[in-house]
């Protein structure tokens, strides 16, 4: 018994002595939370988010922190992995809000995590910007949740109009992932917009598959044998490569049109020549970019070795928005809850924010009014700016 007591006491003393690392001065730091899918189904998205955050932090540190009310505060980025799972995203958000006292959260990217995580952020009155979630439910009725991209109900009609004007087609085929929230939503909006334009039944093939499928030949055979003039597929880059190539192998001659999820450098790399000449709508065009956008792309490219996809660019914009909101919040009181409310108000007030993916002003729901860009993949496999369509 005695021995034990001594042991415990000794241990106490020793650990107390060594805990001197903390003997530095305590400062108010501004913490920014990042909720990203580092593992799970879409690790590439998590990687893009992380790299954008690293670059942003580098910039901020170079400037000596964020300046609020004439005082510079150091910034810390808290990165949490949501494993591409809804529950993990909720846990991560709760942890960052209650434990790390973050000022603002950027992420999660996919709607299936952003919807439940947005609920948490809103309940704790912590501002959150989801850079990539296009589902209306993420921000609906949630004053504290914002997003950095346009919504599916906007993108669907944009594409329908563009295709009608550009090609003069009347019969559409759609191939999408039924188990994934984003492609399904966009496919529905596109279908509605197209049928409104060309009458019911003008979407002659409306086929689906399930996440992680790699063989689409059965659906494509059906599409090819319908008299569709073009194929619309709002899929992620890895599936695009397979779909386009398989369609070619099965004798498809028409164009394939995509959505913003095509906007990754890997699309062309994985897809090869089959993708040349195709169109897609996106948030920003990497090739032919000018000014700040080009600067960001070049820096990212030289640092990480590839051209950033839309996730990286949108995360970058979301972080810059967060920074602008913090700077615009007047002063930091040190009370996180109060500061969060101030940051939220500042964020809602931001007007004509010049982001690298476009100019943004938030609507009341917290969605930005943004332009969509139509990009053509050139014969050399480069993304060429084709057209800009604004709401």
């Amino acid at each position, binding site marked *: *018994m005695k021995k*034990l007591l001594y042991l*415990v006491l000794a*241990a*106490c003393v020793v*650990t*107390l002595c*060594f*805990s001197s*690392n*903390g*003997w*530095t001065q*305590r400062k108010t730091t501004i913490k920014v939370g990042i909720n990203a899918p*580092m*593992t*799970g189904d879409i690790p590439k998205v998590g990687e893009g988010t992380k790299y954008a955050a690293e670059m942003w932090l580098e910039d901020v540190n170079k400037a000596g922190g964020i300046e609020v009310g004439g005082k510079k505060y150091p910034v810390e980025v808290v*990165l*949490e*992995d949501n494993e591409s*799972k*809804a*529950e993990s995203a*909720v*846990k*991560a958000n*709760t*942890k960052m*809000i*209650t*434990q790390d*006292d973050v000022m603002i959260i950027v992420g999660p990217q996919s*709607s*299936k995590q952003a*919807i*439940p995580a947005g*609920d948490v952020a809103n309940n*704790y009155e912590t501002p959150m910007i989801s850079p990539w979630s296009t*589902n209306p*439910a993420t921000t*609906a009725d949630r004053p504290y949740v914002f997003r950095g991209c346009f919504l599916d109900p906007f993108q669907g009609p944009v594409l329908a109009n563009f295709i009608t004007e550009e090609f003069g087609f009347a019969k559409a085929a759609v191939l999408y992932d*039924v*188990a*994934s*929230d984003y492609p*399904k*939503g966009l496919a529905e909006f596109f279908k509605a917009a197209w049928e409104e334009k060309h009458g019911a039944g003008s979407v002659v093939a409306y086929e689906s598959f*399930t*996440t992680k499928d790699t063989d689409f030949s059965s659906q494509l055979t059906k599409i090819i044998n319908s008299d569709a003039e073009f194929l619309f597929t709002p899929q992620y880059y890895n599936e695009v490569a397979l779909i386009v190539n398989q369609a070619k192998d099965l004798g498809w001659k028409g164009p394939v049109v995509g959505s913003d999820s095509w906007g990754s450098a890997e699309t062309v790399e994985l897809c090869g020549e089959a993708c040349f000449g195709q169109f897609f709508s996106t948030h920003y065009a990497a090739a032919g970019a000018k000014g700040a956008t080009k600067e960001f792309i070049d820096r990212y490219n030289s640092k990480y070795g590839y051209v950033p996809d839309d996730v990286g660019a949108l995360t970058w914009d979301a972080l810059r928005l967060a920074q602008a909101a913090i700077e615009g919040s007047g002063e930091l009181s040190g009370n996180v809850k109060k500061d969060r409310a101030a940051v939220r108000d500042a964020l809602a007030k931001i007007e004509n924010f010049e982001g690298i993916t476009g100019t943004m002003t938030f609507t009341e729901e917290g969605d930005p009014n943004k332009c969509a860009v139509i990009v053509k993949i050139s014969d050399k496999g480069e993304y060429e700016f084709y057209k800009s369509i604004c709401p």
Partner: protein
Amino acid sequence: MDKLKKLFKPFSVVPLAGWFLGVFSAVLMEFYLGDLISYYLYLPKIPVLFGALFMLKTPLMIPSALAYDLVIYVVPVFLVARVTAPLTNQLAEQLERMPLWLATLLHLAAFYVILSMWAGINDYRVLIVKLTMISIILTLSLNVINGYQGEFSCSHPGFMALGAYASSTLTLLLFANDKMFGEPLLNPALGPWLFPLVLIIGGGVAALGSLIVAVPSFRTRGDYLAIISLAFLFIVKSAIENLEIVGGPRGMSSQPNYATLTVVFVWMALCIWIVHNFTTSVLGKALNAVRDNEPAANSMTVNTRKTKMTAFMFGAFWAGVAGGLFAHVLRYVNPGTFSLNKLAEILAMVYFGGLNSIYGSIVGAVSISVLSEALRPLELFKWIIIPLILILVMIFRPHGLISFTELNVKELMRPRNKERAGGVE
């Protein structure tokens, strides 16, 4: 090992109530002094999970976090527990004279108070505790099928999904004003009181769904249950994805906040109690007999088919209840949650903890849930370390950590000051 035993010898006289008192004092200390101590130790905040998150993120904080654990948890727990042992033993004796149910209830109440105080420090803790308790229900329910019944069922996420969707639909339809179903049909004030009924209906739906698996697979013995249940999982997921009325792949959100810590705790306690009674009942013993030797059990007048079906539906019921709680804790469900990953997670908890054992299920669920939270800062490496730990446990304890032991509440709560036949000392 011997030295360790010697070290813990003075504590063998502490009854469960004594440990409770020790932990209670530690929690009290954290409640009142936690902020102060963590301030002096230069920790940014009270560590949530015993400082694991700090330690892994910034190794420099290891001494501080350890010191915190020592001061707040280790010293008070052991000190108070040992010092008050004579007192708590008397208490335990008095409790022993009471009816067993009362004594158990008192212990549970004490445990609940401690848990809610500990969790109350931080909402992140509340969330972890809630999800961990739901994992316990899930693990127990799968243990009924994979452990007590000795089958290999893969459809648990499917049952969970059925329960989650059924109960979410009910609460949203009846008690909540939402976009999907519009105005509530009943007075929302009734919601929390009818919530248990909703959960039971959710469990019932899961149990009904389990018949789809049970009817074809129990005609014969063997591994076909594994693939039938797997097919069932795919079917459920695909069916929900196609049901636009429950949101399809978008899922359902903004369920009312009924699953509070108390509710989840009560359901977990209820589940442990009922599963324990089930497995020690005649039916449960018959189930074990069927597992060990089906023809022999059959010739001993056990209706094997009925036994298996009942147990399977019983397991599915609890999975459904867990699913309902899960949906109301997260306040969001989508079909993607109930995937093969979830299956791997539940299977890991069951086999890690140990088959055929309630202790084992609790240990398995708690350790995997807490471990996966505590190792969060390691990011990718978390998914190397957790599988490695599991492989090692499987190699050295192939039946899981604690298997084939029955829960004995009486033995657990008895006073420890006297020597007893079959006791520890």
